[in-house]
């Protein structure tokens, strides 16, 4: 679906934002693109969505070189959710979606009301201007805008930002549903829980370089210290011991009366990210 080879980009002479990125995203995959502010995530996404030109390297989408595919046909196939809910605040959710939908072929458009219902936008707000909506409501309408054209490739920038926990769960469910339909999803996020729960693979970006690319599970395994922390009771006292996971193959290798808890020391995705880049995400 997406193939990027030796992608470089500079803002002016001395401000190189991307230093030769190489990655590919398969059809129907949910691909996470993680990196701190200024790492080049937005620049990459803007190149992939056809907004930014003047890059070097090769970028192909839908098997076609993107430099030759900036026409309306290209934009018909993609949906983009921006980090902020960009909508006409003087129009209602229904009017916004009808307006944005009008640029796509009829057979491609989804039913506006059905979509808003799926995103649990309160029906009493449908005809009210967006200016009266909460940030979470606006984000839901924006998601509806990104999905209105049944895109084959969906770009999501911080999809759960501004949502309450139930909204975030709903968005993750919808993204999963989209994938099941065959949509490829490219997620740019700071949210490690989103990346861990949603993405088939994640790429770590730091200072314009791709420093790691794998499934979240493998990244965590690779970077684990393979230790286990055991809380146990012995002679009425509570003790804690850290042992190598391998040692467990022979059973618990110390005297104990009762095991209270057993914690694997697998790192979180954020820990792994810090190991690779030397800095946190936020």
């Amino acid at each position, binding site marked *: 679906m997406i193939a990027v080879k030796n992608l470089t980009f500079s803002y002016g002479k001395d401000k190189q934002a991307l230093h030769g990125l190489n990655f590919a995203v398969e059809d129907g995959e949910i691909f996470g693109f993680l990196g701190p502010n200024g790492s080049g995530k937005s620049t990459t996404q803007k190149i992939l969505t056809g907004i930014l030109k003047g890059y070097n390297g090769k970028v192909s989408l839908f098997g076609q070189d993107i430099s030759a595919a900036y026409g309306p046909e290209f*934009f018909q196939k*993609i949906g983009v959710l*921006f980090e902020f809910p960009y909508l*006409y605040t003087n129009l209602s959710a229904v009017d916004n979606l009808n*307006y*944005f939908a*009008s640029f796509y072929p009829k057979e491609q458009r989804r039913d506006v009301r059905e979509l808003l219902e799926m995103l649990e936008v309160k029906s009493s707000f449908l005809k009210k201007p967006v200016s009266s909506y909460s940030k979470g409501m606006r984000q839901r309408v924006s998601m509806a805008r990104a999905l209105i054209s049944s895109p084959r490739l969906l770009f999501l920038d911080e999809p759960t930002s501004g949502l309450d926990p139930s909204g975030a769960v709903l968005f993750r469910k919808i993204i999963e549903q989209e994938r099941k339909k065959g949509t490829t999803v490219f997620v740019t996020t700071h949210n490690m829980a989103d990346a861990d729960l949603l993405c088939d693979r994640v790429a770590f970006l730091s200072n314009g370089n791709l420093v790691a690319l794998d499934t979240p599970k493998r990244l965590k395994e690779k970077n684990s210290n393979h230790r286990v922390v055991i809380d146990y009771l012995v002679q009425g006292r509570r003790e804690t011991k850290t042992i190598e996971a391998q040692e467990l193959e022979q059973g618990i290798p110390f005297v104990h009366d009762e095991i209270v808890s057993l914690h694997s020391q697998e790192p979180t995705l954020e820990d792994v990210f810090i190991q690779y880049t030397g800095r946190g995400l936020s």
Partner: protein
Amino acid sequence: MRIAFRALFQKDVRMLASGKFFLMAIGFLFLYTAYINLGYLRFMQMEPYSVYLYDPAGTQTEKSPLVQTVSSMEAMKTALLSDANAAGLDASGGTIRVVLYAGAEAIDRHRADYALSLLRSSGGDPPEILGTNTPEQKARKEITCELLFFELSAVGFLGIAAVLFKEKWMGVLRVHAILPLRKNWFLLSKLAVFLVSDLVFAALLTLLNIGLADGITVLPAVLLQTALLSLVMALAGLLCALLLKDFRQFTLAYLALAVFAATPVFLSANTSVKFAWIGYHPFYHVYMGLKNAYFETAISPIYCVGMAGVIAVLFLAVQLAFRRETGKGG
């Protein structure tokens, strides 16, 4: 594609309607019409200066009825104090002496000549009148032209910028960057809405204020000039809105435009004040194009071609600024 343009056009009309732009345009139309008919024309029919005469011996027998006689020099000074633009004539010493508060030298001379002329009988050869316009019709055309120029250059410029600033603030420009439409259409639909609105405004203002018969005669030329000016100002408004950070910066730019661009043009085109450099001022030619349309004077085709060139260059600049803006942030 036609459907996409219609959607853009309808959305822009809704944006303008929600910003009360059309309501304001109708308001301005009534305001200008009321000003022309109830204020300006009456003002133009008034005598330019009051003239007071102190003539204790009654020597001035052919004086005009416009001359007001005073009983003493003190009375004249009191009258001149309350009406500093007036001129006084003191005939108490045998010869006529002009008394007035000093203003600009040329105007003072004109006031003195005018006051003295009122002491002579109105006989003699009348001057040859050029053109077919009556003084009232001339005044109507002049003021209609000025107000239309103001409306197109100031209100249209502000209006289109206000709409674009609103869209910039809402972030929807970025959404349009990833929609399957020709990006030029986003700009063209805005230009089309303002063009249609300006043409309707120009036609109504002209017909309401210079009359149906004369109005229909001059309308084709007026509408052509309106279209040229409307496009130039709308493109300038779009460019400013795309390049400037916020509406506050824009209002400063607008003030600079109003003070430094419009003022010398109005002075040069409508008064005896002439600046040597005014020929290099682009707005002067635009204003004169509109004035020539109202007075049915031939408009140079070179001017029209030049304007078309300016519109094309401005459109290219707006396109570049639009691309730059949609590629920012987000």
